[in-house]
Structure formats: structure tokens, C-alpha cells
């Protein structure tokens, strides 16, 4: 154990902290760290593979004798499978194996019931149509409100009702809080179901190399989670299951677990004795692979006339279809003295929800930040000032300041909706939150760094890169520690034969990996210095490596280039395996982030155009400024898409999704893109030796709220339901004018 002094905080607010570190731990990054590669604008390491079409995704794997799988889905929203006859399908041309789902009770339209593997995809699809299924249709409910009513058709027979309430949480004295309020707002906010719509649909290629040895190329967010799931499902030792995800085409939370239809493809491969390729179609992707649950948030909040929130109450419910976890957190962005929250899951006959980029947060923060805005306008206070009065997070406060300047906050409408003509412009604000500095203890994560006698360096970890830039930050961190250009390293990821890496959920990949990469690289460098020191007539601790040259710090004339130094290793490479250390206490574990949106509302057509978004986002140490900005910009675009366009629509009378494609389920295109200014706000936070907080999720959390608040500032229309479609704007405008909507 050793003690080090760190300078943590943000510009103008640094403080010294003494932390205790385990032996061998690199000195954590802090405000005084001089970094050359980390924090630069480095193009991603796999850019070349991606722009040339050489990057191989799971869909792209081609093996000798490979079969193609197709899935048969249930057309009914709720049914019992009375019989399922595959005999005709089995005898069709090219068909090599057929399997049926174990569950004979189907609870949503689109649920997988059987799968076929054949020589071609067309043959497999034809054979699926030849499977004879006799369904007994059962009563169903797909509408959130209908499902809550007593006597609604039950999604699960063994439950009393479709509603599963969570325990309420309560803090402070709510009655006193409301009594102290000068202004009270009651409002209900609603959000829709959003599907992940990854460009690469779910899929895998399964290859049984031997009866007890399985190799799978999977489009997954967790290579090791997939491996462990497969091992359990097929009763194999984990060492006999190999999962490979060198590239994957987006997950956003939907590719964290092994799905039943994916297991089916593995089972088909076992039955047929040949590799099987499964890639689900776009419709199946919408229906069955997950979604962000919808929400209804019934709220009441009060504040004093000088802008302090005194009481905050929310009763929320939503549906995750046949899944759980819809309950919206109504996340605590600000500090309120008295809070009461209840939440409930409502089961419906719809595809299961699952984590989607900041689960619960975009929907919860839409309500939180809309309510904050309503309170601010009610007491006639600047909406930013109001927020800052209720905020104790120093990073968020500094970000408000920066964001106001960047957007030109003073340009906002002093009177919402004022001005002649149908076109109205306005500016809105919202803040987000997220917290992931890595698990306090996660000693499963390991990184290997090898230095070879020919000068080559390998950095290995089996985690996957979803497109966030994991491969690139691993390279940058190792290069920084070793004193080499990034191009001199070979980064190997996305394979379970490499050391254990985290699943990419909760923005945990960077905070899990970054400190471990540093540690492994440091260990390897020390070993090399031990070998090189005698040749330079120095002690190992007197050496440093920069730009590929090892030099005696006190006597820069004594130097040796990297390749020659590695030659001193003889025939034995350096091979260091580091295990992630526990987190230590730092300065700030929670990321904030603020967004300002400027919109134009046409009250004659109802159309909302986002003109500009300013994002000020922190994530501790910014590891690669270029790819970090890309993530932030992408999150904003997903947020715009959620705010204005996306909506999974289930027909109440038939129970089927009416827009299971990429035309009527509209995701943002280039036309919907505003000018986006992404400002990465550097903070020295501690907690792990790289000072890293997760970045994937926080910037998607406030966008929809900032847009809704901008619509209010522009047109004086308070949009309490997403998506903000033209007809909702027109309806709000008509209601304001006393007309009928």
C-alpha cells in the first residue's frame, strides 16, 4: 500500500486528496497529469476496417457447410399452441434441422415458436411457412390503461392482476413541503415505447467444433456473458465455449443476454451437425428483441417564490410488455427536501422491454425537467437560475454556465409564444445524470500486455466494442503508459480467449477497462526497464520511455530505441496480466451534463425543427476527445429521434405492431439533424486510476426534455407527451385557443 496526493475537481475548484493505493498501482490521473496520447483527438483504430468493408460483423461470418436459419413467429398476441407439426417442413428441400420453442404459451405477437435451418435462407423461410401450428387464441390486452383495469385479460394466469407495484420511496415531510410552497404544479407526463432499432439486427453464427466444444460469433454486448449463458444452456464447461464479437452493429442495451431464438440457432447447429447462421429480420427485431418501456408520470411539485423546490411527488407506471422493470425512476437530478415516489409495472401482451441506453432515464428526466420548467415559469424565474438554486452538483453548475454562453441563453423568448406569424423560435434547457466509475470491486476484469523481443506489443481484453470506441481507448491508454505511438500496438478485443472483460451495460466498459489497461501496461514497462537498465548503466526507476525511446531521465544522452531495447529480452517475451484494482474514494462519482436546445415551431403545420443543441458533458477523464464527442453527438440525435419521431404502435383491437419497419417507425435521418456543439467538460474525479466515468448513457438522458422546454419557450405550448408530433402540437395549440383538439 502506498499513499499519493491527488489534485481533484474542476477548474477553479481543485482540492487535494490523499488516497491509499495498492502496490503496483499506477498513479491515478488527476488535474496535474501531463498526458500526450490520452485525451487527444485520435481517429478510431478500426476506422480503416470499417470504411473498407473489411470489418466482419456476426452477419458476415461465412463458414464451410454453413446453413441458414429462419424463425417462425406467432401471429397472435396471446395464444396457446395446441399442436405444432414440423413433419412437412422437415421434408422440404434443403432443410437440415427444425426445433420448436419450449414455451407453448405465447404472450405477444411476434414471439418465436419454431426455427428451421436449411441450405439457403429462402429454403429455411419456405419451410417455416410449412410448419403447421394450431393456436388457441386467448384474450389479450396491449394498451397500458386497459391493462390496469380490474377484469382486464391477464397476461400471466398466476398473477392477481397485470399491475405489479414497487415499494414507494419517501424522504422528508411532503405535507410540510407543500404547505411551505408558494407555487404548486400538477401535471401528467407521458412517454412512448421506443425500440432499439440497431442497424445490425440480432444474430449469431454457431459452430460445434466437437460434441462438447462450441464456437459462436455473436452480435452481443457481452462476450463473456454470452459465453456463460451458452455454457449453462448447453451444459458445457465455460472453457469449451468460445464467443467472438470483433465488430458489432449497435446494441444500445438490447444485446446483453442470450435470447431464446439465439439458443434455437445453436440447437439447430447441434442437430444438423453443421454451422448455422441466424440473422433476424427487421420486423422480428422491432417485435421481439426489446424496447424502452413507456411511462405515465403523474406529478405534483411545489416551490417557494424564491425558487427552492419544497415538495416533489410522482406516481408512475408503464409497460415493459411481458417483461418487468418498466417502473420509471424519476431520477434525482436535483436536491429536493421532501420526495415521495411510487412506481408500477403493468404487464401487457407485447414484446419484453429491456435495458435501453440509460434505462428509465430519458423518460424520467423528461418529466423531471418538464416539471422544473413549469415551476420556474410559474414563479417567473429564469429556468436556468431556478435549476441552479436546486442543484448541489458542482460540475452541473459549471456546465450550466458554459452552456448558457454557448447557446446565447439571453436570446430566448422573454414571453413564451410571443411574436407574430406561425413560426416561433425558442430555447430550452435540461440536465442529465449518470453514475458509473466502475464497480467498486470487480476483480474479474483482467488485461494482458505482451512485449515481444522484436518490439511488437499486444494488448488483450475479451470485451467488445459496440461502436463506442473501446478498441481505441484501450490502445490510447496502453500507448500513453508505454511511451509508444498508438500505431505501434496491436489491440486485440472481442474474443473470450482473451482475458475477462465487462459486458457493455450501464456505461461500464471504459471505467472497467481503462484502469486495468494502465496497470497491465505499467507492469510490462517496468519489466522491460529492469532488463534495459543495466545496458544504460542506470536503475530501472531512472528510465522513461517517450516516442519509442527509452532514456535515462537525469542523463538524456543515455538512450536506446524501443526495438533495440526489446531485443535485450532474448527469446522470452514479457507477458503481464493485470487484475482490476478496487475503486478508491474520489471527488465526484456522478456525471451530470446539460443540454440547451433551440427549436423552431410552426404552429400552422405543427412541425418542430431542432435548430441547434449545445451539450456540455463530463465523463471524468476524456480518453479520446474525437470519439467521445461522436458518442455525445449520437446520443443527442437519438434523443431528438425519441422526442419527435419514434413510437412503437400496437393496434388495440388486433394486438399487432402496425409499424414494424424503418419507414413508419421513423428514426432520425440526416434531415432531422440540427447543428450540434459538443463541449467535453474535463473533470478530475478519482475513483479509479484513469479517473473515468461512463459516457455512453448520460448524454441521451436530457435531450427530449430540453426540446420540449424549447417548444414551450418558442410557442408557449407545454408538450407533456412524447413524441412531439405535428398533431400533438396542433392539438395543444387548438386547446390553448379554446378550440377542440
Amino acid at each position, binding site marked *: 500500500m502506498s499513499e499519493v496526493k491527488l489534485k481533484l475537481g474542476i477548474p477553479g475548484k481543485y482540492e487535494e486528496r490523499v488516497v491509499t493505493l495498492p502496490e503496483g498501482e499506477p498513479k491515478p490521473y488527476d488535474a496535474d497529469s501531463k498526458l500526450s496520447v490520452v485525451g487527444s483527438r485520435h*481517429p478510431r483504430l478500426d476506422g480503416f476496417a470499417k470504411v*473498407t468493408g473489411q470489418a466482419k460483423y456476426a452477419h458476415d461470418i461465412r463458414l464451410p457447410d454453413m446453413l441458414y436459419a429462419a424463425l417462425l413467429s406467432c401471429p397472435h398476441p396471446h395464444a396457446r399452441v395446441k399442436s405444432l407439426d414440423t413433419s412437412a417442413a422437415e421434408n422440404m428441400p434443403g432443410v437440415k434441422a427444425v426445433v420448436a420453442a419450449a414455451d407453448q404459451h405465447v404472450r405477444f405477437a411476434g414471439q418465436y415458436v419454431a426455427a428451421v435451418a436449411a441450405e439457403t435462407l429462402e429454403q429455411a423461410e419456405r419451410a417455416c411457412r410449412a410448419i403447421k401450428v394450431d393456436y388457441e387464441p386467448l384474450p389479450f390486452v396491449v394498451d397500458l390503461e386497459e391493462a390496469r383495469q380490474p377484469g382486464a385479460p391477464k397476461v400471466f394466469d398466476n398473477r392477481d392482476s397485470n399491475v405489479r407495484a414497487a415499494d414507494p420511496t419517501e424522504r422528508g415531510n411532503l405535507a410540510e413541503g407543500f404547505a411551505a410552497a408558494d407555487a404548486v404544479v400538477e401535471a401528467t407526463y407521458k412517454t412512448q415505447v421506443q425500440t432499439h432499432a440497431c442497424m445490425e439486427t440480432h444474430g449469431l453464427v454457431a459452430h460445434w467444433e466437437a460434441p462438447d466444444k462450441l464456437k459462436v460469433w455473436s452480435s452481443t454486448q457481452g462476450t463473456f456473458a454470452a459465453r456463460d449463458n451458452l455454457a449453462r444452456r448447453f451444459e458445457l464447461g465455460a472453457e469449451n465455449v468460445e464467443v467472438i464479437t470483433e465488430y458489432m452493429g449497435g446494441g444500445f442495451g438490447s444485446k446483453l443476454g442470450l435470447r431464446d431464438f439465439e439458443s434455437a440457432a445453436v440447437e439447430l447447429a447441434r442437430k444438423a451437425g453443421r454451422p448455422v447462421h441466424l440473422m433476424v429480420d427487421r420486423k422480428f427485431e422491432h417485435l421481439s428483441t426489446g424496447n424502452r418501456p413507456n411511462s405515465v408520470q403523474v406529478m405534483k411539485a411545489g416551490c417557494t417564490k424564491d425558487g427552492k423546490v419544497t415538495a416533489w411527488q410522482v406516481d408512475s407506471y408503464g409497460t415493459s410488455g411481458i417483461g418487468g422493470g418498466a417502473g420509471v425512476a424519476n431520477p434525482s437530478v436535483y436536491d429536493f427536501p421532501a420526495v415521495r415516489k411510487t412506481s408500477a409495472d403493468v404487464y401487457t401482451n407485447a414484446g419484453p422491454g429491456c435495458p435501453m441506453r440509460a434505462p428509465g432515464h430519458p423518460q424520467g428526466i423528461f418529466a423531471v425537467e418538464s416539471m422544473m420548467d413549469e415551476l420556474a415559469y410559474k414563479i417567473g424565474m429564469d429556468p436556468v437560475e431556478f435549476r441552479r438554486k436546486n442543484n448541489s452538483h458542482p460540475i452541473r453548475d459549471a456546465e450550466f454556465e458554459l452552456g448558457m454562453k454557448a447557446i446565447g441563453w439571453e436570446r430566448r423568448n422573454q414571453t413564451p409564444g410571443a411574436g407574430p406569424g406561425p413560426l416561433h423560435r425558442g430555447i430550452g434547457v435540461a440536465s442529465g445524470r449518470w453514475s458509473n466509475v466502475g464497480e467498486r470491486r470487480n476483480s474479474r476484469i483482467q488485461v494482458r500486455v505482451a512485449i515481444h523481443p522484436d518490439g511488437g506489443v499486444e494488448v488483450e481484453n475479451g470485451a467488445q466494442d459496440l461502436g463506442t470506441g473501446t478498441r481505441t481507448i484501450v490502445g490510447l491508454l496502453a500507448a500513453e503508459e508505454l511511451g509508444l505511438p498508438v500505431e505501434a500496438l496491436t489491440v486485440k478485443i472481442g474474443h473470450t480467449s482473451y482475458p475477462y472483460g465487462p459486458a457493455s451495460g450501464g456505461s461500464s466498459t471504459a471505467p472497467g477497462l481503462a484502469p486495468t489497461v494502465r496497470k497491465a501496461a505499467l507492469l510490462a514497462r517496468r519489466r522491460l526497464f529492469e532488463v534495459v537498465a543495466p545496458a544504460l548503466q542506470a536503475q530501472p526507476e531512472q528510465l522513461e520511455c517517450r516516442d519509442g525511446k527509452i532514456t535515462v531521465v537525469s542523463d538524456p544522452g543515455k538512450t536506446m530505441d524501443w526495438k533495440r531495447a526489446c531485443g535485450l529480452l532474448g527469446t522470452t517475451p514479457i507477458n503481464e496480466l493485470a487484475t482490476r484494482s478496487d475503486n478508491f474514494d474520489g471527488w465526484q462519482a456522478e456525471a451530470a451534463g446539460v443540454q440547451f436546445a433551440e427549436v423552431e415551431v410552426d404552429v400552422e403545420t405543427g412541425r418542430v425543427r431542432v435548430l441547434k443543441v449545445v451539450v456540455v458533458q463530463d465523463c471524468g477523464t476524456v480518453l479520446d476527445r474525437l470519439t467521445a464527442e461522436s458518442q455525445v453527438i449520437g446520443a443527442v*440525435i437519438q434523443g431528438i429521434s425519441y422526442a419527435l419521431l419514434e413510437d412503437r404502435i400496437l393496434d388495440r383491437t388486433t394486438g399487432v405492431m402496425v409499424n414494424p*419497419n424503418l419507414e413508419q417507425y421513423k428514426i432520425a*435521418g440526416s434531415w432531422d439533424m440540427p447543428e450540434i456543439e459538443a463541449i467535453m467538460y474535463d473533470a478530475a474525479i478519482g475513483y479509479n486510476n484513469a479517473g473515468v466515468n461512463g459516457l455512453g448513457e448520460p448524454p441521451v438522458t436530457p435531450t427530449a426534455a430540453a426540446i420540449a422546454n424549447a417548444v414551450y419557450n418558442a410557442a408557449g405550448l407545454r408538450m407533456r407527451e412524447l413524441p412531439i408530433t405535428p398533431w400533438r402540437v396542433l392539438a395543444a395549440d387548438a386547446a390553448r385557443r379554446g378550440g377542440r383538439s
Partner: protein
Amino acid sequence: MDLRFKLNGREQSVSIAQDRRLLWVLRGELGLVGCKYGCGEGYCGACTVIVDGAAVRACQFPAREAAGREVLTIEGLAKDGKLHPLQQAFMEHDALQCGFCTPGMILAAYSFLLNNHKPDRKAIIAAMEGNLCRCGSYVRIVAAIQAAARRMYGG
């Protein structure tokens, strides 16, 4: 049927079923997997390839209609190991994240720039409207296309 056409500069001959779409011939029989399946209905643009200079949706394009014509896929865009300016610009501007839509994006932009040498931002946005990127890289895609156009045609 026997399909003969020019693929990435070389004469190609392949035996296909009459009704097969170009996407599946490229990805299947010919093993050119840079052309992606995104939606199979012509809405997302992930399968964009170039036929006689024009961007087409390979998932909708009957392979038999490629007979006697010239098809360019992402695999054929770099010449003699040298990246096309669009590929170079996409890398430098980080105009991609997961990269799945990237081949289609680059080829759609390639076809657009053939006839538009000095496009402004608005024209690029309009031209790229049919290619979806779920990671949301549009800001940088537009910047990359603009940079590539300058490199190719000056101005």
C-alpha cells in the same frame, strides 16, 4: 440463370436464381459482405451499392438487372491499396461509430459526388436523407463528405 456483369472492375459470372436480389448474391454467392442487410425493404440504405454510377438499394435490386452493367461495392472503392477520399475523410472525421451503415453511407455519398462537385451542406443533407445511422453520426458524415468533395474537386 447465368449472370454476367462487371464487379469492382472485373468481369464476373455467377449462376443465380431468377428472383434473387443483388444483396443476397453479393453477400452469398460472391462473398462480398461489406454490403449490409439493415431492413430488407429499401428504407435504411445499409445495402447501398453503385450500378453504372447510380446508388441502388441492393436489397430491392433484382440481381438479373445487373447483367452487362458495372457494379461497385465498398470492397472495390479503394484503388491499388489507396483509400478513396471519402473513405479517408470518414476515418479522419470519425464519421462512424459501430460502422454497420458506413459502406452504404460512403457509396451513397460517392454516387452523389459524381454529379455534384461543390455541394453545400444542405445539398449533402438532402442527398443522405435515405441512409440511416442509428449511432447518430450524421453531423460528422456531412462534414466528411464536404471535406472529401473539396479534396476531390477543390473549391
